[in-house]
């Protein structure tokens, strides 16, 4: 186990080097020039040179890359180009807000979607299965933006059940978050339930299920004791790997509902060519993905004794 952990952590180093190089090259060679974006039309050469020097963009590329690597190691990405705010503070504040937006529907959605998938799997081939399949496929075909605009218009504006937009820190955030939670839950229902249903159906066809029923096990016992456990590997992979995206928030949701999370920070940064924010957030997300990948592998060993970490 320890050897496995050490090996995987060491493997993260070349992955992070690759990711950092890719991000750096992408934004320094292909992306927008942040200085030109900041200064706009017909900036004087003096103003361009002054700002380029201030932001360290007059340094050779290898020096800029070394600085970037230092920032990754120290997890200190400096200050925003546009506002001068400390990025560590911005990210911490933004991540908390994003998590308040994404975690409740993620957790509740997971429970509800699993429950619905179980029901559908048990009634496979019935009208319930057929109609729900049609419904979820139709729901998945509609754009996220349409859900947001429709729900905001109907439930917040027309019915007045929720605030149209806004955010307050602390418990005051809840009234502003309920509608976005519902939208996230509704949007994720289609793909989640379709996946979970398929996984459960695959398992219900397995020999051990027939054996369990033959032994006289109750359906509940077969489901929770046998099928659930065996279905856990693909569900775990799908679920845990989605956790880093929770930190990144839901940028469309944050934009439409004026929720000051990391998703909106990232989109604003891309529009402004705010390279430190883009770099910082992309690296943090890359680190989160590798860490949660590792966690997924460790969890496999717990849910399935056949998996050997060493």
């Amino acid at each position: 186990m320890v050897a496995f952990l050490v090996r995987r952590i060491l493997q993260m180093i070349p992955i992070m080097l690759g990711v950092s190089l890719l991000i750096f090259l992408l934004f320094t060679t292909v992306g927008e020039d942040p200085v030109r974006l900041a200064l706009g039309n017909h900036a004087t050469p003096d103003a361009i040179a002054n700002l380029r020097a201030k932001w360290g963009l007059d340094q050779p590329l290898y020096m800029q890359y070394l600085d970037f690597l230092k920032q990754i190691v120290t997890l200190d990405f400096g200050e925003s180009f546009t506002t001068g705010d400390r990025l560590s503070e911005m990210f911490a504040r933004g991540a908390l807000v994003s998590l308040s937006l994404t975690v409740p529907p993620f957790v509740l959605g997971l429970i509800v979607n699993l429950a619905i998938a179980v029901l559908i799997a048990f009634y496979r081939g019935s009208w319930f299965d057929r109609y729900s399949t049609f419904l979820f496929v139709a729901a998945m075909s509609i754009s996220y933006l349409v859900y947001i605009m429709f729900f905001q218009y109907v439930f917040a504006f027309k019915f007045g059940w929720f605030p149209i937009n806004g955010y307050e820190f602390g418990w005051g955030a809840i009234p502003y978050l309920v509608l976005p939670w519902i939208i996230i839950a509704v949007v994720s229902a289609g793909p989640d339930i379709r996946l979970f249903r398929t996984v459960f159906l695959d398992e219900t066809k397995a020999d051990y299920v027939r054996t369990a029923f033959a032994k006289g096990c109750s359906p509940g016992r077969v489901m929770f004791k046998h099928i659930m456990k065996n279905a856990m590997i693909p569900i775990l992979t799908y679920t845990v790997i989605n956790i880093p995206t929770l930190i990144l928030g839901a940028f469309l949701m944050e934009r439409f509902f004026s929720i000051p999370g990391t998703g909106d920070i990232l989109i604003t940064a891309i529009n402004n060519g705010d390279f430190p924010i883009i770099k910082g957030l992309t690296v943090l997300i890359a680190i989160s993905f590798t860490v949660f990948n590792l966690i997924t592998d460790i969890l496999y060993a717990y849910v399935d004794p056949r998996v050997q970490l060493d």
Partner: protein
Amino acid sequence: MKYQGLRLFALGCLMGSMTLFTACTKKKPADSATSESASKGGSKIFYHYRTSEEKSTDPHKQFDAASALLVRSLYDTLLQYHYLKRPYEMEPALLEKMPEKKEGSTYTFTLRKGVLFHDNACFPNGKGRELNADDVIYSIKRFADANINDRSYSLAQGRIVGLDDFREQSKKLAKAFDYDKIEVAGLKKVDTYTFTIQFVNDSPLNLYPLAASVMSIVPKEAVQKYGDDFDKNPVGTGPFAMKTYARRGTTILVKNPHYWETYPTAGEAADQAAGLLAAANKKLPLVDEVHLPLIEEPQPAMLKFKSGQIHWVAVNRDDFQAMIDRLDNKQFKLKPAFENQFNLYYAPSLSSTYLKFSFQDPVVGKNKALRQAIAAAIDYEGYINLMLNGRGYASQSVVPIEIAGAERDSGSTWYKTDVELAKKKLAEAGFPEGKGLPELTIEYRNTDKNTRQLFEYIRNDLAKVGIKVKGNFQTFSNFLQKTEKGNYQMADAGWNADYPDPENFYALLYGPNKAPLPNDGNFENARYDELYLKMKDMPNGPDRFKLITEMDAIIKEEVPYVLLYNQILAGLLQKDVQNFKRHMMDEYPYKYFDIAGK
């Protein structure tokens, strides 16, 4: 029956989570701009919103509209634009009277007495002290400090004697160096309330930068106390002070009880009838607080407006179509369903939109008849009607119509759609019916759907006479890199007035202003340059307008630009908003607004 327990578990989860969702919901919005709640605790609150985050509330570190929204309310400038008069007219703000010419290009400035900075911990006992000449000199130097101002110095570059040298020296010194150690020859304090500025030349244009938000006056004590956090602790003499600052949330401004200004007593002829002079001589600001949440998308802004939670909203193309009827002669009115709920305003912007040619290009740059053919082929009114819901004036000169020197003063006209003329000119250019003419490229600064639709309209019009064009849609910085080298054939372009003077627009085609300066098409015409130099520093009047008429004729003949339109900006107001007149040089003049019935 055998699956009943399982089914109950699943349904229980579903119902439980739905119950939790609905239990958390709230029936009524907390904030509202309607009469009842716009006066919380007896105070008048104006509810508006910000569409993007501001870069900084520090006047000398910002140069964007979102920052100017706050800076204009928190700080004052020496001069400002009259709220009601059009064309835009400068008037004293922190000055007692307009600057007086002393000798040569030196002007004397006299400050108002009794103007106080906001109460703040940076002052002894937390009480704001009186503004003086030292504050002005300190602020101008700070504006020129390269360690502080990396955006807007070009506005005053080459204008004040010694200020460019000061900026050069500041580059070699550390941040927060002592400004008193470097003198600026053109800035002299006379006494507590009086100072002089010596300009490099004597031109009316010299005064415009003094009305820009980037040259607002700040107190040295606040800058020294708060350092890098000065933008989070703004201290000015402006009509409002900062109550709550939340860049990504709701910023709240609160009335400055010691503010010096009163509501204007004169305006345009129609202002009296429109009720815009009812508040004449009243002490400003008229509302107690301004609430400014960040709302980046148009849908929630419009929904909040319609539900009475904000007082003023801009109207996008889709909402305009749904809510507003077009009348004749560029007039608009709200559809009957909205007439009794809201008020509509519309006013021409100070921007000019056009297509520009690069004279470096061997095809379009060397062929005047081809450029004329393109100018004659476009259906300008059709473009405005279809693509802008009629919200624009077909440009007759490069100067927007609200600025002195525009068509009403110069009498200039631009091409009318004339397919026959376009075909004739195309044949004259050596490409009868477009034969032999290679496909031309128009550069665009955006890749969005709207930009592509605008291009399609132009493409279609030009195709009717045999000119084929393609659009090159790209990121803004790529567009700048390409166009500023003159490396293009045609490009989508426009200019928003830095100051309301025709010179600001004619400078765009002045020969020596070649790329990377604004004349990036490298247009050259000796007579045009001669006329420009003559009109540049003249006051507005018949003599200046005569020169402008001749310059317009050269532009029409040479066609360095295809002039498209001067946009009309429209928006909606709640019925109880008073004293609102759209002002393009100070876009958010909250100090003048009032709410009826309070």
